């Protein structure tokens, strides 16, 4: 059952502009990362969110600033949607001390305790137990908080997925499991990794509410996420969203992409979440090409400025190498 967005349209035009702006912001940021990575200015492993913007923006709309988020290594979209300043995220890509993790984490380990963004995690499925624990603490203290836990279809094959789904359902923990099913675990298509590919059906077997959602339609994602989050917050136990989406670029920056055909990519590009929303708004006379261009320019300037700041920012002093291994420096 796929949740379709139904008229009348309760969202204001202004809200749709904001959704569009956020998705475009993520898209331009990721494109700049491609450029900077090719120039060798940012290093390591970088996993791009291009094509999945609707999931991050839609789910984030259902959360309050007081909710928790646990993400994965494909996390730029989650971090920006959550409101971590682009300057801090870009500085982190440059490994500078002004980065949101002081430059120590890089693309896969963005942290912002103030915004309850409990990091990316480079171990597939590694974040699920953390989210379960955060929710456990909230439940034990009676806090009305939702913990949103993002992971990909690859994580579904990990033991930790099974253990956490069961534990969360068993203890009725306030976790919103958000499975970004982009059909590929790096180079392994879903059907070559899972006997049962209907992940929402799989999730229901643990005794929790689970819905498949059109992950390319930000309005659908938002509506499903709002309903799920409200139910979780009201003590309805964990909920599972299978957000069916697609990444337009390689698993990380570059790979042979021999695991999927160009035709398939082109087909999914037809359902680009940004074009989908922009097209609908244009048709409803809510958006002009000039407005769209203006939004694009403003975002590009903001991102370029973050690059300048990141380049100029200081790196952490080597003297601090052993800081934060323990909270108190050993005597």
């Amino acid at each position: 059952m796929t949740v379709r967005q139904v008229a009348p349209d309760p969202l204001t035009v202004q809200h749709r502009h904001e959704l569009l702006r956020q998705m475009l912001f993520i898209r331009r940021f990721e494109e700049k990362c491609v450029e900077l990575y090719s120039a060798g200015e940012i290093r390591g492993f970088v996993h791009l969110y291009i094509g999945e913007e609707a999931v991050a923006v839609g789910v984030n709309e259902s959360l309050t600033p007081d909710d928790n988020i646990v993400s994965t290594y494909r996390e730029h979209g989650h971090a920006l949607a959550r409101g971590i300043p682009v300057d801090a995220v870009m500085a982190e890509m440059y490994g500078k001390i002004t980065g949101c993790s002081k430059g120590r984490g890089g693309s896969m380990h963005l942290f912002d305790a103030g915004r309850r963004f409990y990091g990316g995690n480079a171990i597939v499925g590694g974040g699920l137990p953390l989210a379960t624990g955060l929710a456990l603490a909230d439940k034990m203290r009676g806090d009305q908080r939702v913990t949103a836990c993002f992971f990909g279809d690859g994580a579904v094959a990990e033991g930790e997925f099974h253990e956490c789904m069961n534990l969360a359902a068993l203890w009725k923990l306030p976790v919103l499991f958000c499975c970004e099913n982009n059909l590929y675990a790096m180079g392994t298509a879903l059907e070559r990794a899972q006997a049962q590919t209907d992940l929402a059906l799989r999730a229901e077997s643990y005794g929790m509410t689970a819905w498949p959602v059109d992950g390319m339609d930000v309005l659908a994602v938002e509506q499903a996420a709002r309903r799920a989050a409200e139910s979780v917050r009201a003590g309805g136990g964990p909920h599972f969203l299978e957000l069916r989406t697609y990444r337009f670029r390689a698993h990380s920056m570059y790979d042979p992409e021999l695991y999927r055909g160009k035709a398939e990519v082109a087909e999914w590009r037809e359902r680009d979440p940004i074009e989908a929303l922009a097209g609908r708004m244009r048709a409803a006379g809510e958006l002009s090409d000039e407005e769209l261009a203006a939004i694009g320019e403003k975002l590009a300037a903001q991102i370029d400025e973050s690059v300048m700041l990141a380049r100029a920012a200081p790196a952490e002093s080597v003297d601090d190498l052993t800081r934060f291994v323990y909270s108190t420096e050993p005597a």
Partner: protein
Amino acid sequence: MTAQAAPSRRDASRAGKSGGPASPAGLVKISYREAMRAAIREALQRDDRVFLMGEDVGRYGGCFAVSLGLLEEFGPERIRDTPLSESAFVGAGIGAAMAGMRPIVEIMTVNFSLLALDQIMNNAATLLHMSGGQCNVPLVIRMTTGAGRQVAAQHSHSLEGWYTHIPGIKVLAPATLEDARGMLWTALQDPDPVLIFEHGSLYGMEGMLAADAGAVDISSAAIRRQGKDLTLITYGGTLGKALSAADELAKDGIEAEVIDLRALRPLDDATFLASVGKTHRAVIVDEGWRSGSLSAEITARIMERAFYDLDAAVERVCSAEVPMPYPRHLEEAALPQIGGIVAAARRAVG
């Protein structure tokens, strides 16, 4: 798997009446297991952020009966039995700690901790550093360790040495009643993850403990027996054997100084280096396998910083490098024993 009562090990405190409420300044006869239980109970009473989580810690009362009675006293919310999902519930303990709770996670034995090693290494030990100091993990993980109960290879590992390799966590080995009673509270105050290894042979050890015994420090080694001819360095389950070996050596006029490390990371090397500076001979007793073990690290530090105090090579008494065999006579042959410690000491004194 049941815990057999180990032979009563000497204890430093004086005789007193057994069990029940002690006279105010008096002593109470207590077992290592009961001391640890008292520590958990005190923590649960004093701090409502504290809760115990692990396999069979509630209704079953704990695999080694450490948490017996706590479910009835504190209820299922704070004494939580978990499914057999080590990675999930250890990870959940980390997450709850990040959110401000003070969980005590019990992993039944170090052997099963291997299923949670990813969460311990890649999350608990690493989050603070990776996040640039934003995410503390004030978590305590307790696990039983060691061999000696004929439970064969998969249930008899001593892997404290592995965990002492990881920067970001602290590792403790309470070997006495005072430490079993006192280390937990201090560990719970620590903003960083602390692992407490309880040797399976100690649970049944009984002795006298001050009725008002409380928190102890978790960063320094202790000299359990003064001596001038050689330094016996050990921890946890082999402390008893080291003390017995020292008694035997004393009959020949060889005075061994016995050092109980107590904290395995960070390692209080100043204490044993000072002792070696005095005795010029060191014997290390470590139930781990010798290659890449904690005893190897201690030997290296002695060589690095007390080289010119050495009048004999450092001796090590470790487990034989074999998967622990089931039959008793083979298990005893594989484990460090009093005879082996005495022989090593004689080689060192020469």
